């Protein structure tokens, strides 16, 4: 084995390479996104994933090997969820004043997210297994996986659908709200948090701090509500 191949076989197996790649790909994605004026389609998650998948493809690296390194970043999802308590506390006064719109919008958005996914899935002739995996798609990933397992879906498929939902929400929200001429950052943020969880929340923070805080509220409340309503709705509808 030549020195170069030896060096490569070390690098390819070392978690450090994939951890570094993830961080650098994200930094590059953020820079590109800024250059394009934070355009919706230039979503940092979407761009990072494209870059990383390209590198994994070229180097013929499997996801398990990649995740050995990337898991250290993945792990931070938990503490980041806990950290959402700060924007919640900062906005406590307005949230208290807006309790009625928040609770009603939460119930309406959450119910529509679950019911429309189930009914549309049936209309498109998807299998019950896929529909069950689809039902908690608007909740944050760790919650959605638990729900999916509880109602008899496939958690692996749910993970895929949750991330796709987040990216769709993050890409669609700004053009859609601008088109509808909705200027209330609280309403915009809350809606994307309810419909597109953490990825939508990350997008909201990118656009406006207030929107981000309300998205965090929407995401956290929807995580609680969805885990209560999905088992019931699935029982009725599937």
């Amino acid at each position, binding site marked *: 084995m030549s020195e170069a191949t030896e060096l490569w076989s070390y690098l390819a197996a070392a978690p450090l390479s994939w951890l570094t790649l*993830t961080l650098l*790909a*994200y930094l590059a994605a953020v820079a590109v996104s800024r250059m394009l004026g934070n355009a919706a389609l230039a*979503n940092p*998650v979407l761009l990072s*994933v494209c870059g*990383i998948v390209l590198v994994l493809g070229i180097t013929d690296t499997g*996801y398990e090997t*990649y*995740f050995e390194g*990337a*898991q250290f*970043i*993945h792990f931070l*999802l938990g*503490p*980041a*969820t*806990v*950290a959402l*308590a*700060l*924007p919640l*506390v*900062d906005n*406590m006064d307005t949230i208290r004043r807006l309790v*009625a719109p928040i609770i009603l919008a*939460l119930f309406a*958005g959450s119910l*529509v997210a679950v019911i*429309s996914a189930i009914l*549309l*899935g049936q209309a*498109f002739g*998807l299998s019950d297994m896929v529909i069950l995996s689809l039902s908690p*798609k*608007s909740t*944050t*990933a760790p919650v959605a996986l638990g729900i999916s397992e*509880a109602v008899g879906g*496939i958690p692996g*498929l749910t*993970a895929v659908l949750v*991330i*796709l939902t987040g*990216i769709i929400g993050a890409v669609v929200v700004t053009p859609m709200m601008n088109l*509808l001429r*909705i200027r*209330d950052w609280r309403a*915009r943020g*809350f*809606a994307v948090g309810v*419909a597109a969880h953490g*990825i939508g929340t990350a*997008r909201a*923070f*990118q656009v406006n701090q207030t929107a981000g805080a309300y998205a*965090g509220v929407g995401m956290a409340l929807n*995580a609680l509500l969805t*885990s209560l309503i999905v088992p019931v709705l699935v029982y009725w509808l599937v």
Partner: protein
Amino acid sequence: MLVTLGLLLSCQLAGELVARGAGLPVPGPVVGLVLLLTLLVWRPGLRATVRPTVTVILANLSLFFVPAAVGVVANLDILSEDWAAILTVLLVSTVLAMLVAVGTFVMVRKTLVGRDE
């Protein structure tokens, strides 16, 4: 920074213990969020302590989703031949949920403001 990380991890750990111990359907980090919220309300001085680190974490929230999102591409075959139908369902359902949520929020707020003022 380390104090904040210690606090976040402690809340998450306590959240996991509570959620698992009580058999709640809610995941540990969400319970941890509620715990930290309670702490920050009880001890307002803590807010300034955690703010710098929390601001950095939340400004880069997207980063933490990247490893899982790469996994999506690795598992694309799981979507099999139904991928077009599934993507359509996701798109329509997500847009509908956002429309209904934002519409409800704006309408209820306007109704209340009209009543108060």
